[in-house]
């Protein structure tokens, strides 16, 4: 199990490049989604009567 996981994360020696790429993309996707959600949360907080 540990060997399989090690092989998975090492990606045949290309682990640094593969995981860096995935990390950057996933961070961007999460950030863009998070910023959009936060905008709406602030809007609803400032306009609480709308929630009633």
């Amino acid at each position, binding site marked *: 199990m540990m060997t399989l996981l090690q092989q998975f994360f090492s990606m045949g020696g290309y682990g640094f*490049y593969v995981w860096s790429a995935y990390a*950057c993309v996933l961070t961007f996707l999460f950030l863009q989604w998070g910023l959009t959600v936060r905008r709406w949360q602030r809007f609803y907080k400032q306009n609480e009567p709308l929630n009633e």
Partner: protein
Amino acid sequence: MWSLINSFLSPKKFFFLTRQLQPWLQALFIFTFSYGIIGGLILAPADNIQGDGFRIIYIHVPCAFLSLFIYGVMALAALGFLVFRLKLAPLIIRESITLGAGFTFLALLTGSLWGKPMWGTWWIWDARLTSELILFFLYLGIYLFQSALADKQKNERVLAILILIGFIDIPIIHYSVYWWNTLHQGSSLNIFAPSTIDKSMLYPLLAMIVAFLLYYAIILFSRIHYELIARRVNFHWLKEQK
């Protein structure tokens, strides 16, 4: 016929239609993204030459595709604004710029991370890479231009013209691998011909492209909703059911 299309492009109809679509888009995104990630990282076999390093394709190609697609959407919106004075068009442009710039940057970044182990270099002034870099500068220029001009109406018209002029870069990026002798490989995906990659690798890639397209739609619609509700003070739309 045109009045029918135009009525759907009215901000209010757009708001209610896309608000109903959002949950479905989100569900579809989760499904396609999950399949793409699992298929790309685990199920697809390692490449014969590149080994597991090729798995960057599952994020690099969708990012590159989105960078071109989003600019295409902006150009279409620009044309719609100039010719038909579509009210939604400036909103679509404004909310797409940062996403397009982001995906272009990611296409370049993931491309570098792929290029270093495979080509031995982080960057090369190859036709595909250079034209993609120009696209990134175009996005930045449009964003800065939009922020700089004070007169809103004049701003939107000039911005639309600028976007249409910059559209020339899109076919250059796409055909660069055919017109010039480039280090960047040719297209793996073809609409009118069989793909050059195996199905076990192809299907997760297609799923990721679809997932990224859905992601763009979800974020764009959410931002346009915010613009219509919060900035344009259409609070009552939130309470209306249509």
